[in-house]
């Protein structure tokens, strides 16, 4: 990767390999707040002089621009554009016909699901399924930029990365990277990251929703195994999964926060059963197709002790990593909002009082609100993405973006209803709009409030991280 590509991530590291002296944190800030100093820097750069503390002259153009402007644009080097071309060609040749993407994920057929899984496995052969994970564990060893390219190109086919809902890759693998032993990483990561297995996350219980630390499912050591008993709810998703990533209580009489542990649970073990929950909508977790939610029953399930990750009764610390990701950091792509495009189209087509919706002032106001919400979602993700790749310390930013998405989802429901009236509520083939996508959003906006921590819980975390009313600010969970 060359100098242009590093612009997004500069100044804190330089993937081009040339050491960019801009990474000096203090200098960067000084440059931006002190215009005179900045001007002096530019002048000295132009005159070809080297100044102490100054940016490397090997990268003058990038550096110059960086000094003058922030840069919101994702730019890609010719090499990366070459990679994009490769991805495009491959997808064109390999995306099977008839990939399904129903408005309501519950409608995804087994056949459609199997196509998604098969596509995932094929992508994994090229390291494209989980591009940024290390190669030795089945990932692609690729850069964030390359991952964005793959995601963007898949998006053109209305498909996500991965092309099926998989909390194993998004959450479990990232947590195992931090807390697993080398042996566990070698055992658990390749199957997940190559798409061989897909996982659910088993957290919530009837008495443990927001209060996750209150889980009552027990996992009691018995020789080389743990024996698990309990019930989990709101577990995704359609058409089953090979594994689960579960938090359980390993010390029923132990102290709160010192009695929990995490397990990799193969779902074909005897004693594991599940039933579909009947919900108004099962949710599109981070946009990934999630299908049904289930109640999972665990009855004397014997899990090998090897599958306990992060140490017995150390699960609350492990949860810190998992929840950090779930509270906003795994959410959201940088690609635009498809619903919005559909809404614009409907407003161009549909008439009210003889005029197209787009010609009505009240509709235009709502559309502006919708657009602003969607842009803020994109910007907050862009900000978070930049902070993560630039290794900036993050505190409240994940939950902030997630909170915004949740709020925006419900506001969007109402705006659509105000614009479209009863049209927004029907999925009728003839009278409904955009193949049911508008109606689904009406249910989805409500349901989006809860997964990965409710709106209130996001606020609780933001408050702690900002240190509102407390002397010590809470730290974020440990990430890879």
């Amino acid at each position, binding site marked *: 990767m060359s100098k242009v590509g590093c612009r997004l991530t500069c100044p804190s590291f330089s993937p081009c390999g040339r050491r960019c002296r801009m990474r000096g944190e203090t200098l960067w800030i000084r440059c931006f707040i002190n215009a005179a100093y900045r001007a002096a820097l530019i002048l000295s750069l132009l005159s070809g002089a080297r100044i102490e503390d100054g940016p490397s002259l090997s990268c003058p153009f990038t550096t110059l621009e960086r000094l003058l402007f922030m840069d919101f644009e994702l730019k890609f080097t010719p090499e990366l554009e070459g990679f994009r071309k490769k991805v495009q060609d491959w997808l064109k040749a390999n995306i099977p016909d008839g990939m399904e993407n129903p408005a309501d994920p519950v409608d995804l057929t087994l056949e459609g699901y199997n196509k998604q899984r098969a596509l995932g496995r094929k992508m994994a052969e090229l390291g494209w399924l989980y591009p940024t994970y290390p190669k030795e564990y089945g990932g692609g060893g690729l850069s964030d930029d390359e991952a964005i390219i793959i995601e963007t190109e898949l998006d053109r086919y209305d498909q996500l990365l991965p092309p099926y809902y998989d909390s194993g890759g998004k959450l479990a693998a990232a947590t195992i990277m931090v807390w697993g032993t080398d042996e566990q990483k070698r055992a658990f990561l390749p199957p997940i990251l190559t798409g061989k297995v897909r996982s659910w996350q088993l957290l*919530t219980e009837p*008495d443990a*929703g*927001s*209060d996750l630390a*209150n889980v009552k499912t027990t996992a009691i050591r018995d020789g080389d195994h743990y024996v698990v008993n309990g019930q989990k*709810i*709101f577990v995704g998703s359609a058409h089953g999964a090979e594994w689960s990533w579960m938090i359980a209580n390993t010390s029923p009489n132990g102290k709160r926060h010192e009695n929990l542990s995490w397990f990799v649970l193969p779902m074909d073990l005897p004693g594991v059963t599940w039933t579909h*929950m*009947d*919900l*108004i*909508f099962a949710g599109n977790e981070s946009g990934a197709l999630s299908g049904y939610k289930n109640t999972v029953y665990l009855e004397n399930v014997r899990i090998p002790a090897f599958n306990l990750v992060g140490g017995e009764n150390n699960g609350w610390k492990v949860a810190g990593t998992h929840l950090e990701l779930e509270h906003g950091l795994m959410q959201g792509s940088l690609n635009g909002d498809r619903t919005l495009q559909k809404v614009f189209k409907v407003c161009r087509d549909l*008439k*009210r*009082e*003889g005029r197209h919706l787009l010609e009505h002032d*009240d509709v235009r106001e709502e559309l502006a609100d919708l657009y602003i919400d969607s842009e803020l979602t994109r910007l907050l993700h862009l900000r978070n993405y930049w902070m993560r790749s630039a290794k900036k310390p993050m505190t409240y930013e994940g939950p902030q973006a997630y909170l915004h998405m949740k709020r925006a989802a*419900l506001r969007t429901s*109402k705006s659509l*209803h*105000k614009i479209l*009236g*009863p*049209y927004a*509520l*029907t*999925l*009728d083939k003839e*009278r*409904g709009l955009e193949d049911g996508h508008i*109606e689904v959003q*009406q*249910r989805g906006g*409500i*349901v989006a*409030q*809860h997964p990965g921590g*409710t*709106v*209130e819980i996001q*606020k*609780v975390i933001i408050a702690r991280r900002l240190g509102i009313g407390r002397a010590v600010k809470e730290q974020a969970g440990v990430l890879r």
Partner: protein
Amino acid sequence: MDLSLTESQEMLKASARELVEREFSKDNLVKKDTNGGFQPSDWKKIADLGWAGLLIPDEFGGEGGSLTDAAVIFHELGRGPVPGPHFSSAVLGTLTVLEGATPEQKMSLLPRLAVGATVVLAPAITESDYGWSASQIQMKAAKRNGSYTLNGAKLFVQDAIGATHILCAARLGSGKIGLFIVDAKTPGVSLRPLPGFTTGVGEVRFDRVIIHESNLLGEGREDGWTILERTLQKAIPILCAYQVGGSEKVFEMSLEYANTRVQFGMVIGRFQRVQDHVIEQVNQLDAARWATYEALWKLDTGQPAAASVHMAKALASEAYYQVCNAAHEVHAGLGIMREYGLYLHTKMSRTLYHYLGDPKFHKRRLTNALEAQGVI
């Protein structure tokens, strides 16, 4: 001043609540909702109490009740929320007939409407250009040899499925709007439900439906839209009462849940963020409640009520919608499980939000009314 209900209204309220709790419990309504909705036998249960004819004068076999009497009952039905044609038929349909029909039409329709079991009259007004302005009625009724031919589609019609009669608004040759009483079994009439996150909504198609001119309400002497506007002034606050009842029930569910659900070792009602939701609910509820009952009082006592009516519908639609949103926040996961039944209110709140005009529509009307009264 006395804001309490009268003794007889208290009795109505008690018997309505008893009926709803006995016949339309939450579990029951959830079951009905999955099994194809409201049944004619359910309508009979309501009609048997005389409520189909509540607003019909004694001379036609009704109860001769006041609008507030009806509102008291609809408030309770809203707590279910009991779906079905009671509002469409017993309020909107019936009041339209009372407002606009000829004496003969009244004689033939009202006694049958009053007993409910034989006639359900569903108003079919809105079309694909959806809205509650006269200009949005484009369906044509062509006259020839003492008959009219109706052609076109009515969209988002409440309670058409199961109705014996449809009250259809269509443009006459003169450009005026006519209101036709159409037997749902007339050749060319077809009904189908519109599924989705909504309740009781359907499409009614008229394919060269021939209607004898005696079925034109008021023989077309008066523009049908004028009749409808007059009717809506009276009918809307009763719909508002239904929305208030729904809001009230959802508020109670949320308060109770906040006081029983334990997380972090305490009831969630101890968390101020949860309290905020419940406070929002009670504020919305009371705003809608008192605006609605004041509008009803003005109507029943013959005072100018237009501004109050529009204000009530704007507030009640908003309240029911927002109270349900807040309830979903309070209940989190539980609230989205169908068996819990909160969703019945949520989709009803969505359905009624725009029915007979959404808040934006009524706020505009409110300003017009204030201007007409010289307030603005």
